[in-house]
């Protein structure tokens, strides 16, 4: 036996592109030392209900959604059973043990023990979608060969019934030789029985010997390879068989095969080369034989366990898709949905936003009236309350955005959108599946970048990562909302006015929509550019399973919405609060001699100094040093811009008018600001638009930079991204501002 780690291939790290850990795989059959708890992995095809079951068993609330590829990371939880606690691992979905995308690779690496940071599981819970039995059992057929105890859990039995099918769990159990349980996790049906079985599974015998067979020559080849792997790489007999079958099942000459071969010793590599060539000469392709043998075996299982109880009906999903995927109406509906999102975000959200703004003002005044005048009062009122309040005001808009995205995710419409958009996306080198990361980036680029792990083509994936931060994220909403609210009139572009109620598109909503459109167009434009110049190469693959439509559970939707909102509030209460206080200090000190006007005091402060240093660079865009302070502080998080402006304008206010002015919203203060030298307003609608354009396009988010670095394994791409986005933002704002001035605006 070779010592542990002797077979570590040097390039394994590069291969595990999406892997967050340094993966230094031990030999696949090494049993991990000092294991304290039993570890069970949840494995299954994408979108078969693994996370729903994981959540039901562990009480956690990991993200669930009705499209393939929701889970892209390994997640751990604890299940308490009569036999003690068990560690459950939820994995990304995978179609087979031959990974074609980074998320599948993560799941495969855990299962085969290629990851150093995760012990190889003691048992597998194979989640099987009963409405899609045949393809799900293909993976089961591979899992049974791993030599680890397997428990099969049937989900989606209700969906199967809608198709007139039923899977007989007992018959399947008998045919497979491993326990099979049916559950409906969301309703907690079948869970007690499942937990009882789960506790016993790790101590059970591994699954019975395989039932799929190959022609004798191919059989001999697998045995031979397995023998070599045992001899030269120190694998156990079962592990050697699994690896041999996987290795021979890879298409000859593919990068996947090269990667797999690097894992084993040179003898194995040379041997397989000669053998595969010999087979090829006879016109035999082993990978075809193995896949077909498994599917033949699956056919036998399906015949025993699947009961077709009624003629296949035309399901509701089919009927809905005649409309939603219609060659004409499908696109119309798509555009209407997107337009509705922006309209509601601006019109509906303004009512609760006004209420919150009122409450923040009231709180500020209440405190101001009760504290003695001085620096401490200024700090609390101008620093903390104004800073946090200015961000929390945007909670309603963010809630609405999250509600909308969560509805799209849970109904299954996202996959439809990917189908409709694929043609357009492929024009610029992206992918239908890029639609999901890009749409999530409207909420936040971080989950967006993570979601690219489901894209099979590494080039399309990199392109998606590069342009995802251009999609207008929710942290930009505060900037837009303040600017639009203050400088863009609410005139009706089209629609009707009923008293105070405006039905239709207002200029404000249209401006907001334009900002989102700009970000989106920029993302596509830059993707097209990079596709032509930087990243030439393989044509991307697009294979996507279409999930059935599901009624979103109100509970899940509301809970996810509030969970995300809570994160936002927490951020406002911690990071933003801290930054507000720091900003207040930087703009209050060094103190000028008594009698200096507040605006001059602001100018001379540390923050003012920083802003004035930046001013020459942003002057051509129409920005002054105060906006410079905002832009600098935005590098921590974009919404800090609003906080910064709030602090700057509160601090530089005349002390005498303090209390009345406090109640005036930030927008009003910005409107009232006049440039002391020219006597003209600092902010004009043109400046506001130029500023918003800058915020759409600039890379101003440290967390996104960190995630991009992790997902692309290095500094090259995140640095490139910062450079191109900042350049793009500067030039576009320059064009907008100077062009606007030439045309006589502002």
């Amino acid at each position, binding site marked *: 036996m070779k010592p542990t780690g002797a077979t570590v291939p040097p390039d394994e790290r590069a291969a595990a592109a999406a892997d967050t850990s340094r993966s230094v795989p031990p030999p696949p059959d090494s049993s991990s030392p000092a294991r304290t708890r039993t570890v069970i992995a949840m494995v299954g095809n994408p979108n078969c209900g693994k996370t729903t079951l994981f959540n039901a068993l562990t009480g956690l609330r990991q993200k669930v959604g009705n499209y393939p590829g929701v889970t892209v990371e390994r997640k751990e939880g604890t299940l308490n059973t009569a036999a003690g606690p068990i560690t459950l691992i939820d994995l990304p979905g995978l179609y087979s043990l*031959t990974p074609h995308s980074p998320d599948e690779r993560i799941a495969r690496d855990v299962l085969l023990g290629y990851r150093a940071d995760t012990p190889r599981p003691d048992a597998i819970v194979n989640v099987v979608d009963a409405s899609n039995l045949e393809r799900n059992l293909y993976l089961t057929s591979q899992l049974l060969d791993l030599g680890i105890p397997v428990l099969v859990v049937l989900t989606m039995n209700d969906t199967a019934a809608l198709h007139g099918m039923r899977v007989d769990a007992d018959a399947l159990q008998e045919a497979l030789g491993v326990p099979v349980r049916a559950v409906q996790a969301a309703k907690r049906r079948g869970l007690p029985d499942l937990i009882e079985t789960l506790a016993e599974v790790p101590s059970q015998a591994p699954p019975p010997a395989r039932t799929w067979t190959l022609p004798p020559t191919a059989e001999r080849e697998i045995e031979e390879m397995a023998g070599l792997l045992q001899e030269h790489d120190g694998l156990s007999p079962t592990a050697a068989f699994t690896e041999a079958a996987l290795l021979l099942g890879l298409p000859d000459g593919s990068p996947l095969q090269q990667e797999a071969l690097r894992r084993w010793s040179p003898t194995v590599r040379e041997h397989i080369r000669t053998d595969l060539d010999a087979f090829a000469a006879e016109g035999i392709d082993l990978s075809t034989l193995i896949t*077909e043998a498994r599917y033949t075996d699956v056919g036998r299982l399906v015949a025993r366990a699947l009961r077709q109880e009624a003629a296949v009906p035309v399901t509701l999903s089919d009927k809905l898709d005649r409309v939603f995927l219609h060659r004409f109406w499908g696109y119309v509906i798509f555009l209407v949905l997107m337009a509705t999102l922006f309209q509601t975000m601006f019109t509906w959200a303004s009512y609760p936003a006004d209420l919150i703004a009122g409450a923040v003002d009231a709180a500020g005044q209440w405190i101001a009236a009760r504290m003695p005048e001085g620096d401490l009062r200024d700090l609390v009122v101008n620093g903390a309350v104004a800073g946090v309040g200015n961000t929390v005001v945007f909670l309603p808009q963010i809630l609405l955005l999250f509600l909308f995205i969560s509805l799209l995710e849970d109904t299954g419409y996202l996959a439809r959108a990917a189908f*409709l958009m694929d*043609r357009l996306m492929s024009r610029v080198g992206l992918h239908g599946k890029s639609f999901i990361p890009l749409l999530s980036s409207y909420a936040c680029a971080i989950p967006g970048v993570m979601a690219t792990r489901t894209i099979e083509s590494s080039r399309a994936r990199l392109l998606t990562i590069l342009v995802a931060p251009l999609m207008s994220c929710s942290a930009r909403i505060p900037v837009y909302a303040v600017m639009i609210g203050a400088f863009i009139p609410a005139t009706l572009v089209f629609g009707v006015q009923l008293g105070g109620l405006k039905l239709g598109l207002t200029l404000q909503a249209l401006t907001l929509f334009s900002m989102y459109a700009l970000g989106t167009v920029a993302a596509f434009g830059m993707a097209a550019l990079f596709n032509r110049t930087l990243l030439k190469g393989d044509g991307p693959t697009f294979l996507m*399973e279409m999930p059935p439509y599901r009624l979103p559970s109100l509970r899940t939707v509301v809970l996810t919405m509030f969970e995300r909102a809570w994160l936002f509030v927490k951020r406002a209460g911690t990071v933003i609060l801290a930054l507000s206080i720091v900003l207040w200090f930087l703009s209050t000190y060094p103190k000028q001699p008594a009698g200096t006007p507040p605006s001059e005091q602001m100018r001379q402060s540390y923050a003012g100094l920083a802003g004035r240093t930046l001013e020459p660079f942003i002057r051509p865009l129409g920005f002054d040093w105060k906006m410079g302070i905002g832009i600098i502080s935005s590098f921590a998080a974009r919404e800090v811009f609003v906080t910064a402006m709030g602090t700057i304008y509160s601090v530089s206010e005349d002390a005498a008018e303090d209390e009345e002015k406090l109640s005036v919203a930030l927008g009003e203060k910005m409107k009232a600001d006049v440039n002391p030298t020219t006597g003209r307003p600092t902010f004009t609608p043109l400046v506001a638009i130029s500023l918003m354009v800058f915020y759409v396009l600039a890379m101003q988010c440290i967390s996104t930079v960190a995630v991009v670095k992790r997902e692309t394994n290095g500094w090259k791409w995140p640095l490139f991204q910062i450079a191109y986005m900042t350049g793009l933002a500067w030039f576009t704002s320059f064009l907008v501002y100077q062009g606007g001035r030439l045309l006589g605006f502002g």
Partner: protein
Amino acid sequence: MKRSTPNTSSAADCPATAAQCTLDCLGKGQKARVCQVEGPNRCRLMELGFTSGTEVEISRRAAFGGPLEVRLRSYRLSLRCEEASSIRVETGSPEFT
């Protein structure tokens, strides 16, 4: 894949007389049987169920030459025309006409 892969096992399902074409040539609603898969995605397509003899039906084609939606083994998969063109199918048998 650089090499073409003559597929002995599918010979029985693919009589030389049957009308053969690639999957992307079929129209909406047409059914066929898979003969052979080639190209860089052969492995994945086969794992997804496109093994020889499998019955497939085109359930939808997106506008502007966009992806196709195929129904096979009681699920729905969308794929681009490029990928579909690497799947050879046979439409000749009487049940499909």
